């Protein structure tokens, strides 16, 4: 039984790893192999992950390991530690990776670099599965950093473009900046516990053998902030949108960003030893949540909106951890994984069809809804889940986070400062409002275009106060016919992911369902937060809708444009392979109605630029480092080189002196001889006395 489970657990990360090795080796010589090599091992790995979860069952754990290498002090072990958290997250990773791989076969059909792309996606999956199952912290670190390099390569997939080149390097360096303190945190943890094994570390935490819990927790948090894109190390994630859309789905839903939250969840007993660390985590989560939601409201690029929404949702998870409840955090991690993968993949279909990332550009395209109905409907479901509208999965998991914060705030959670609970609760409610607002804005602006035809019929329709005008432009259908529907490989994963997006939330309701896999803490939302959270979300959606109506009215009355046309609309056509761009649609010159300026006011411009965090990094990190590099260049040229040259000067001077003496003049030779003899005689005379 145990050996069988261990074999399963080893195979789960191993299969995608072997697939990636095979893909990288054969990619150029046998391109026909690339597709099966990408999809089949990932499918098998997902199936095995499910099988392992079923075998273990709720409450089951699997531990095992073997010595990887001696180090001269604390050895490093290749070990497994699978519990309910690990088993379920591995299932999530496997399923999302399958969807992404299947989707990519079609999305990157014409990409000449598909083979290496798919191999890197497999490696990415394998690394995440290693992080999930590993029972040794240093081996976990291996998976952790391999994910970093995979994200670097995948974000830089379109390396022909400046954006991708800059974003890829930024993604790696910002996360690496967090990984260094993280490594030191692991050292300290290993030193205090006497072992790098997670089970030993947890025992040590329980026995009170960890002597520096606050320092350990803070150091680890640096790495978590980098990986899980928390303030102030979140800036890489929005830029990482330069990568292909399926990669974004993978990074945001199942791998990379999930790793940080997962790690804290695994080591939560260590964090609970330090109230200070929990407060820091709570502050980090609160700032991240609210800041990212404000930024999301101002973005024009559909993928950047989703990216900032990921940052915010990760903030919720971090908030739940700060409130001492890892069940809620992982619950939200799993539901978010499902609906965020769905959102990105459907956004990919939309981008594919619209040939632009800009939602205001989409707003000028009639008939987008009818052209990609699957994407429209699944995206609607995903946005409802994101906004936390009952009964979608996002509602339940978000409410469980808010409930956890409420418990912490009222002092019911042992070891968690009440302040942390209050902070998370208030920030969570504010974020719920903003999240609903930007989800609504995305949906309205992208899918409910105000074209000339609409506008002609607009006033009567709006007087009746009904929903936005339904009738689509007549030649939208013509478009839809001319442009064939998206292939099944791109549509099916959407509906597969739609199922958990709708239904996963209810699994938290009964204590013997999802909570049985975790610590057994109830995940049922309390009435206070459920009502409060839902009201706030509806309020946000309604506010956004009203603002949009005003923007529409403004645009109709003054076509020259009161509604702002965001100045930067990077139509990332490199992403949409093949096919010419749609003819610049019906109303090229007119601004699209956008509720963001009304909602954000003067905050719009800074929020669109990410609230200036990038500029801060430029000032505080990039410039000092470049200055130091210039200084070193100067030192090497002038100082180090100088003493070498100086050392060369001494023998040259001595040589010059001795050459002087060899002047070929017998008189001076004889004089020197005489002087020397006199000197010798004098010396002998002096010494003899």
């Amino acid at each position, binding site marked *: 039984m145990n050996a069988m489970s261990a074999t399963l657990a080893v195979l789960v990360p191993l299969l995608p790893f072997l697939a990636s090795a095979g893909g990288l080796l054969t990619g150029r010589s046998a391109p026909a192999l690339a597709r099966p090599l990408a999809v089949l091992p990932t499918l098998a790995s997902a199936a095995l992950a499910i099988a392992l979860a079923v075998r273990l069952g709720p409450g089951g754990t699997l531990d095992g390991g073997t010595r990887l290498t*001696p180090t*001269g002090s604390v050895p490093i072990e290749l070990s497994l530690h699978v519990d309910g958290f690990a088993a379920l997250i591995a299932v999530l990773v496997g399923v999302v990776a399958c969807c992404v791989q299947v989707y990519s076969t079609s999305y990157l059909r014409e990409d000449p670099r598909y083979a290496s792309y798919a191999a890197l996606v497999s490696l990415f999956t394998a690394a995440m599965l290693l992080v999930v199952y590993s029972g040794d912290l240093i081996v976990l670190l291996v998976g952790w950093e*391999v994910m970093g390099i995979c994200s670097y390569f995948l974000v830089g997939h379109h390396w*022909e473009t400046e954006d991708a080149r800059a974003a890829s390097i930024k993604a790696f360096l910002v996360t*690496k900046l967090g990984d260094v303190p993280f490594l*030191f945190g692991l050292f300290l943890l290993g030193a205090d516990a006497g072992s790098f094994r997670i089970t030993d570390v947890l025992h040590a935490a329980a026995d009170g053998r960890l002597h520096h819990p606050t320092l350990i927790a803070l150091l680890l948090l640096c790495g978590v902030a980098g990986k899980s894109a928390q303030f102030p190390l979140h800036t890489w994630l929005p830029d990482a949108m330069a990568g292909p859309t399926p990669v974004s789905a993978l990074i945001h839903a199942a791998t990379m960003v999930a790793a940080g939250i997962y790690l804290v969840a695994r080591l939560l007993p260590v964090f609970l030893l330090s109230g200070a660390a929990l407060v820091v985590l709570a502050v980090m989560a609160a700032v991240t949540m609210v800041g990212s939601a404000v930024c999301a409201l101002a973005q024009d690029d559909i993928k950047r909106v989703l990216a900032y929404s990921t940052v915010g949702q990760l903030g919720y998870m971090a908030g739940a951890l700060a409130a001492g409840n890892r069940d809620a955090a992982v619950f939200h991690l799993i539901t978010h994984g499902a609906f965020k993968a769905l959102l990105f993949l459907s956004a990919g279909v939309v981008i594919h069809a619209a040939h632009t990332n800009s939602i205001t550009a989409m707003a000028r395209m009639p008939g987008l809804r009818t052209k990609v109905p699957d994407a429209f409907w699944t995206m609607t479901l995903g946005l409802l889940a994101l906004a936390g509208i009952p009964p979608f999965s996002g509602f339940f998991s978000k409410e469980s986070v808010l409930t956890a914060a409420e418990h912490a705030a009222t002092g019911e959670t042992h070891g968690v400062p009440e302040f942390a609970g209050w902070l998370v609760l208030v920030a969570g409610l504010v974020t719920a409002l903003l999240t609903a607002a930007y989800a609504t804005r995305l949906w309205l602006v992208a899918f409910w275009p105000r074209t000339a035809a609409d506008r002609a019929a607009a006033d009567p329709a709006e007087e009746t106060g009904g929903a936005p005008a339904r009738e689509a432009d007549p030649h939208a259908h013509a478009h839809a016919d001319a442009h064939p529907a998206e292939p099944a490989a791109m549509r099916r994963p959407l509906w597969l992911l739609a199922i958990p997006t709708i239904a996963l939330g209810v699994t938290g309701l009964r204590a013997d369902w999802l909570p049985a896999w975790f610590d057994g803490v109830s995940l049922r939302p309390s009435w206070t937060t459920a009502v409060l959270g839902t009201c706030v979300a509806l309020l946000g959606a309604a506010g956004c809708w009203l603002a949009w109506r005003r923007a529409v009215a403004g645009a109709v009355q003054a076509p020259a444009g009161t509604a702002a046309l965001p100045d930067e609309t990077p139509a990332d056509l490199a992403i949409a392979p093949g096919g010419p761009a749609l003819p610049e649609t019906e109303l090229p010159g007119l601004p699209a109605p956008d509720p963001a300026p009304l909602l954000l006011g003067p905050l719009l411009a800074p929020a669109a630029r990410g609230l200036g965090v990038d500029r801060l990094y430029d000032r505080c990190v990039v410039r000092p480092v470049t200055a130091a590099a210039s200084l070193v260049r100067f030192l090497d040229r002038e100082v180090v080189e100088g003493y070498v040259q100086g050392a060369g000067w001494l023998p040259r001077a001595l040589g010059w002196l001795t050459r002087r003496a060899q002047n070929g003049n017998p008189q001076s030779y004889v004089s020197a001889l005489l002087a020397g003899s006199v000197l010798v005689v004098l010396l002998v005379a002096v010494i003899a006395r």
Partner: protein
Amino acid sequence: MNAVLIALLALPLAGALATLSPRLLDGDRALRFGVAVTGAELALAIALAAGFDYHHAARMQAVTDADWIPAIGVRFHLGTDGVSLPLLVLTALLTFLCALYSLRNLPAGPGRPGPRAFTGLLLLLECGMLATFATLDLLLFFVAFEVVLVPMYFLIARWGGENRGRAAFRFILYTMLGSALMLLGFLLIGLHAGTFDITTLAARHGAGIPHTTQVLAVLSIGLGLAVKAPMFPLHSWLPDAHTAAPTVGSVLLAGVLLKMGTYGFVRILLPAAPDGMAAFAPYLGAFAVAGILYGSLACLALARRGAGGDLKRLIAFSSVGHMGFVLLGIATLSPTGVNGALYANIGHGLITGLLFFLVGAVKDRYGSSDLDRLAGRTGAALYGRAPRLGALLGFGAVASLGLPGLAGFWGELLAMLGSFHPAAGLSRSTFLVFMVLAGLGTVLTAAYLLTVVRRVCMGDPAEPAPALAERGGVLADVRGYEFASWTPLVVLTVLAGLWPAAILGLSNPAVKALLGAG
């Protein structure tokens, strides 16, 4: 077993002598002869590793111990243990790959001697390098250490690129100056201890050598070894030598010659003069960390657009940074740190060897290794123009920045873990500062290597690169002989990264014995 080790040293020497006969080996036959001899050497090294008793990695094996110069007690003492075995195999492998590579890619032209001279020098070099790692007598070690300089001087001065005369001259003067100091130190130790035998000295752990003598000996020997390693600020011969050296010379210089310096620290100074090392460890650590930061900052400056940085010079400076990790590991005087140093030695040999091969190939194709001329405005787009070469360069860079799962990682990790727990008697807080600075160095290392990848591998393929346009605009991808000589390095980089116990399992018992910790 001891016959294998003796054959390992005798064969290249005999081969080098054979190349003196012009009738026997003329033209390309000499190159093929070189491949055959170095191939046989590699087989011998593998045989040595296969016959090695892994359960007693701390014990000297394949030992030959005979009188050599009885008058001053110098013995012909050879042997290998877990510390030197990986280095012997690495040396044999790299030399073989270099011989293979030169079969098709030997710089020729006016002023350059023919292939016969090249093969002879390569074999002599191999003999010296292997002897350095196999000798167990101080004076024999010195002889082997010096033998290496002569062929390397000629490799740089005769087959090198621009400024080769000056660079070779500086290389030999600089290292000779260090060697002179080292010899004085050897004599000092030998006269006080009454023996030049390294194993005897190691077994005594410094007993019988007064503290001041140890300090003096470590200072003089350490300076000689630090020039070779190279340790900041004694590194300035290295970038020039690498920039001017031919590809093969660069590979062996970085892959093996630098290791001779750090190997000397571990083999001789750590066990024979522990008090002296303890006195100097904080300074060694400080210079090591300064080297890490200095090397990576210099690389960053070279990688910047408009700096006119040379790619070979950049990789050379990266060696200063990487060897900083090795020296830091040694400075901790702890088993973990020294294990890390030995592992980093091997990792750096594999990865930087590969990088110099790749950069040499880029220089061959473009006729220049000036980054600005290669990259143009957006980048050289090797991923698109020569996908395999680009991918290998990307791999090399990623391995060099210490990605876990590849050979560069474990050495850096253990060096930092070692400075987290330095040996008893060293100031913990000092070494914690070193550790933090070294961690910062890993970020800077990642920054410059990824900048290089960005400027060389990425870029807009539609944009013409200035250096390429002059050469007809066509870029050949990896050729057969290049593939053959690079693949083993790639494979070993991955294997060593995935299975670190292959090296650490060997070095750990030996290191513990050297440090007297059991």
